[in-house]
């Protein structure tokens, strides 16, 4: 088990390294120079002020989404539960888009966007909480209501965009999820939040493992099921809102990474929760590196000087493929 965790950690470091050298405007050798203490002012700025924070934000957001997904899937005993279908991600998107549309926040002011996204995410979760019976009594009905809430919030976002298109280009990138232009300010907002709620989620590993066994078994073993589920959902909402506020609605990470983590590490959440964080970091970090490499390919038909592939587009495609593999390999797995 610990060997597999170590392997995941190595993979995460490799992805991080790939992402540092993948971007445009700087040769891989120059990256090494800067890391060794050399390089000119421009190179130092690119690496230390742009690439490193971008890398950290993408790893952190991936970890947040993956942990949130695993917590949701365990607490709701539902293989399709993920941040996208519990109203949190769409709520956060709606919050950020609305704030921008009203002129309260611009895409160059990270703090305002983060606050708006968090508020939106919490609104989405609160809506779900009101609809599905306080405390998330029944996992199946919670999941159904989550899809409903997500659909409505997605529709509202589309309406806001039609009325107040604003800086449409960057909004669209954000709807898909991107790590483009993330700076230290984003990272400073993300990490304390992620660390606090991630730790809280890990402390819930015992109750969450029991919730995976089904409510009847968990109750008989002495777990106060409703209270445990409410706390777990709170952690998941907070982690998702943090991640979405930082990088936008990255598709599929919160759904896919938990499945991969359980397939590789088993159902012992004490190990699998940190493992899922690593998987999420690897997926988003790797996808971001790949997206930057793609963007470097000279595509004559496109204005390749301006073309930037958003990482969310890649995670969604990659996620779908990987999820298919997981489902095909273990046809009778439920969650």
């Amino acid at each position: 088990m610990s060997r597999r965790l170590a392997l995941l950690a190595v993979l995460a470091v490799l992805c991080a390294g790939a992402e540092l050298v993948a971007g445009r405007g700087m040769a891989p050798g120059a990256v090494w120079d800067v890391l060794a203490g050399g390089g000119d002012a421009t190179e130092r700025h690119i690496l230390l002020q742009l690439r490193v924070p971008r890398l950290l934000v993408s790893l952190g957001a991936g970890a947040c989404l993956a942990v949130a997904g695993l917590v949701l899937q365990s607490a709701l005993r539902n293989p399709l539960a993920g941040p996208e279908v519990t109203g949190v991600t769409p709520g956060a998107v709606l919050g950020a888009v609305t704030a921008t549309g009203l002129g309260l926040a611009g895409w160059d002011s990270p703090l305002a966007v983060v606050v708006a996204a968090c508020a939106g995410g919490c609104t989405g979760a609160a809506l779900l909480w009101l609809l599905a019976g306080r405390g998330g009594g029944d996992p199946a009905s919670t999941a159904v209501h989550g899809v409903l809430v997500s659909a409505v919030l997605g529709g509202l976002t589309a309406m806001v965009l039609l009325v107040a298109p604003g800086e449409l280009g960057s909004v669209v990138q954000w709807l898909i999820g991107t790590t483009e232009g993330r700076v230290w300010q984003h990272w400073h907002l993300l990490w304390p939040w992620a660390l606090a709620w991630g730790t809280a989620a890990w402390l819930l590993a015992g109750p969450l493992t029991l919730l995976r066994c089904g409510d009847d078994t968990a109750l008989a073993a002495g777990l106060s099921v409703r209270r445990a589920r409410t706390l777990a959902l709170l952690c998941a909402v907070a982690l998702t809102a943090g991640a979405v506020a930082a990088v936008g609605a990255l598709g599929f990470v919160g759904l896919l990474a938990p499945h991969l983590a359980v397939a590789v590490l088993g159902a012992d959440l004490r190990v699998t929760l940190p493992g899922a964080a690593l998987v999420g970091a690897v997926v988003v970090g790797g996808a971001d590196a790949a997206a930057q490499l793609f963007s470097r390919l000279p595509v004559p038909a496109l204005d390749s000087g301006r073309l930037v592939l958003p990482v969310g587009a890649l995670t969604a495609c990659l996620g779908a493929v990987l999820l298919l593999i997981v489902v095909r390999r273990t046809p009778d797995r439920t969650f």
Partner: protein
Amino acid sequence: MTEPVGIRLEGIHFGYPARPVLQGVDLTVRPGELTALTGLNGCGKSTLLRLAAGLLRPHRGRVLLGGEDLARLSRRATARRVALLHQTAPAVPGMTVRHLVRQGRYAARGPLGMLREGDDPVVLRALRDVGVEQWADREVDALSGGERQRVRLAMALAQDTRVLLLDEPTTYLDLHHQLDVLRTVVRLRAERGLTVVMVLHDLGHAARFAERIVALREGRVVADGTPEEVVTPELLADVLRVAGRVGRDPEGGWPVCYPDHPLPDHPVPQNTRI
């Protein structure tokens, strides 16, 4: 071996809107007794077990466990005193036998205690008790139904309680595994002085292994006594709604049922519209 603990149900009423389930049940299970609970589907057997395990709260009446009122105990404190094995449990992907049995320690260890590495002696004992220690690191979902039931029994035993409640522990099992589970329960109860109440549909098993049979009909206790007293053709007809004969085991002398055919359902009253 510590002193066995008794269960006392006093004037229990429980039900759902428009459907009363239990209508004034009084039942005292003496410490160390092995009791079988029987009756038709929907007569309230499982509900009675859930009430006795503190998973449901009675609308009226109270449940006492060794003199303590369950209404005053938290969920965790209750689970340290009484374990309940449910009839079925959903699949849990990726979970090993050892890991599932360890979950039975939640009540004793608490949410943070579950984060500690390692098995305590109770888990190892529970694995040995039901003879699954050789598969401890296999996945539960890869086991057969009979093996899985043994593992789930081990999880309940890992709660290390004085009282063990079993809801149809042998349903869905072949005869070999039915007897395997029942014999394990009988042996452990003798070794540990457990108080055991189990729902059994097979009156033959109940008569063979239980010292006392309690029959429920429409939420009330309608028969209560030793197998010799309770297992009669009248009980088969009145409570289980089957016609049949009752004989004796040629060697052991306990009652053996020869059920034959189901009796017609109760006639519908004249003025009821269907």
